[in-house]
């Protein structure tokens, strides 16, 4: 027994030594006087397909901002941490960034649960948190507070944009297939509620809720085939959406009913499908390649070239711009602008600026930071999937609508917050 605690104590000393040696040493050598933002996201594992382009966008914007003189004469610096897609890891990282690295602000998230967890911590620690990639509307609505701002669109905005386009279709019998978790439920509810509001004669004939990450969708496909639906919405995303589309095609499902997927326009879903892409599907898209879009937004082409060069030099295997890249880019600028307007890095002062709201111009349009909920509102694009050159699918017939014409009003947001407070 005594040998054991002896040796344990020794191994402790060794580890303690390692801790003391390496702990402080890796600490980011703070640029004197830089404005430091702790950014927490998923930089390992499955989410990297989204977070790598996002980070490139963020870094590109940061470089531009710093080259132009920084913010309030100081450099902007992002310090990154990996949350491993786990909310408790994110909270730990947030604590480290705030307590140890003494960052001025927190930012980042891709998983909605992570975003909400960091937001709860930020509220408690009174540190301003900019949610950048995760999409849940609860962030700024049900669970909103003054120490959280959302720099990209939320689920409600793009669901409604799609619903608006869908309401122009002649179909009344609808079904859907959505992943069975909070994001999927949130997305479907927003889509359906708005569609029904715009076109009251639509009816829901079938619901399908596969588990998140389901690999075989054939029972749902055959169910949809016999549902009698004229159109169906899909809230699936990423690898699951690709699998669903590939499995559904030979069944002829896309020919039988109008396919309305929420995010098929995203290159990470569309590109791998190649010739198997469902032509005729109506979806949201960041169609930077579309001539109509380029004409409406003359600065976009130059930005795209700039991004491609940047991503290529940074070793990205696929350097073409993704939606996430625009989110990263916009987030850095919005954060910088908020600090600039506040003329301080004090969280309360910056929060006050956010709650007054402001607008910014980006190569893809105007992004409004709305004051009542500190929620960003960018333009939304919907289009139809078509086959482009060399069997590469694209989205065409792009219709643009600004989120400000879709988003829930400040009064509705206040009601949501009150309801959430009551249910607590």
């Amino acid at each position: 027994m005594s040998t054991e605690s002896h040796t344990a104590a020794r191994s402790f000393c060794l580890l303690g030594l390692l801790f003391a040696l390496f702990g402080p040493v890796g600490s980011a050598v703070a640029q004197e006087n830089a404005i430091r933002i702790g950014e927490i996201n998923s930089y390992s594992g499955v989410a990297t397909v989204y977070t790598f382009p996002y980070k490139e966008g963020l870094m590109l914007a940061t470089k531009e901002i710093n080259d132009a003189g920084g913010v309030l004469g100081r450099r902007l610096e992002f310090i990154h941490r990996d949350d491993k897609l786990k909310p408790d890891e994110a909270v730990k990282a947030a604590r480290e960034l705030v307590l140890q690295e003494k960052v001025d602000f927190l930012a980042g998230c891709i998983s909605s649960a992570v975003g909400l967890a960091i937001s709860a911590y930020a509220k408690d620690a009174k540190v301003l948190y900019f949610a950048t990639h995760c999409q849940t509307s609860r962030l700024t609505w049900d669970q909103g507070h003054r120490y959280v701002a959302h720099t990209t669109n939320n689920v409600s905005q793009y669901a409604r944009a799609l619903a608006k386009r869908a309401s122009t279709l002649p179909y009344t019998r609808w079904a859907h297939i959505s992943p069975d978790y909070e994001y999927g439920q949130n997305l479907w509810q927003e889509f359906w509620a708005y569609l029904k509001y715009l076109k009251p004669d639509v009816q829901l004939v079938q619901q399908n809720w596969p588990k998140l990450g389901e690999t075989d969708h054939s029972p749902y496909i055959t169910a949809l085939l016999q549902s009698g639906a004229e159109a169906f919405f899909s809230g699936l995303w990423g690898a699951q959406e690709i699998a669903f589309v590939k499995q559904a095609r030979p069944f002829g499902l896309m020919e039988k009913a109008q396919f309305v997927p929420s995010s098929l326009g995203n290159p990470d879903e569309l590109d791998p499908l190649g010739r198997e892409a469902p032509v005729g599907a109506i979806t949201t898209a960041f169609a930077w390649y579309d001539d109509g879009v380029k004409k409406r937004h003359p600065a976009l082409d130059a930005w795209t070239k700039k991004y491609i060069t940047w991503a290529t030099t940074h070793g990205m295997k696929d350097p073409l711009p993704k939606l996430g890249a625009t989110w990263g880019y916009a987030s850095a600028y919005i954060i910088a602008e908020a600090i600039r307007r506040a003329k301080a890095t004090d969280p309360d002062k910056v929060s006050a600026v956010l709650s007054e709201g402001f607008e910014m111009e980006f190569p893809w349009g105007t992004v409004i930071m709305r004051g009542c909920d500190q929620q960003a509102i960018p333009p939304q694009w919907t289009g139809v999937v078509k086959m482009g050159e060399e069997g590469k699918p694209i989205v065409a017939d792009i219709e643009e609508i600004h989120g400000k014409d879709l988003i829930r009003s400040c009064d509705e947001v206040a009601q949501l917050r009150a309801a959430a407070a009551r249910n607590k």
Partner: protein
Amino acid sequence: MEMTTSLFPWITNSPLIAVQVMSGLSVGMFLFLLSVGMSLIFGVTRIVNLAHGSFYMVGAYLMAALIEVLPGNPVSFWIALLLAPIGVAVLGGVIEITLLRRVYRRDPMMQLILTFALILIIGTLVLLVWGPDNKSVARPEALAGSVRILGQPFPSYYLLVLGLSPLVAVGLWLVFYRTRWGMLVRAATVDREMLGALGVDVSRLYTQVFAFGSWLAGLGGALAAPTVAVALGMDADVLINAFVVVVIGGLGSFAGTLISALVVGELQSFGILIFPGVSIVLPFALMAVVLMIRPWGLLGEPEE
């Protein structure tokens, strides 16, 4: 949850039931292909290879990589299908020789943890080599469409799976019961020491078995690639399913794996219609029930 997919139209709609049964069959066949390798490896070496899903994933990624590199004619698909599993077999062999050989005499838990460590390593290596983007493999032209079964469309590609899996099952039986190598392998499961004493290089035999099991996993991945997205996270999805099938069927029993794969495939296909929310828990509930009532599975051997 809310309104579910209604079962009523199904009861009256026999063509759809037929299609659903066929779908369940092809799911079951996929599951068999993917699980039999794990069962084989356990049956011989007594190691539960948790990295099985990772081998499946590597098979799918190799398939995608080969198709990108090979010329765009229809034959390329079949060439890739031939080569990808071989690549995985080589990987398996290397892993067996360098790592697994050292833990055969150890506690089974150490072996399990070693194979778990492989999941972490292989997963990261796949990300580093092929990047984070999703990939896709197209079905070959000849099998891209569908055939009519009782008037309902049924994807032609699934016919390939439905045809290939029984061939694999029969092939396995032939190998293990009609070849000398197979006989040696069966002897090794009974008494490894004796076999060694009789002059057989048992170590090499084990390597061959592990490589063979890996080949089967890679074949499963390569075959599955045209029906799913080739993406990170495939390994976890598939490991759980394979694990459940193998446990229910009985570790080490082929026939058990085949039967249980078909049962699990059909249950998953139909279970979703009856209890929609259940698909997330079904595999584990099944596994728990089997382990509680008959731990060695349907056709496994009770261990002492």
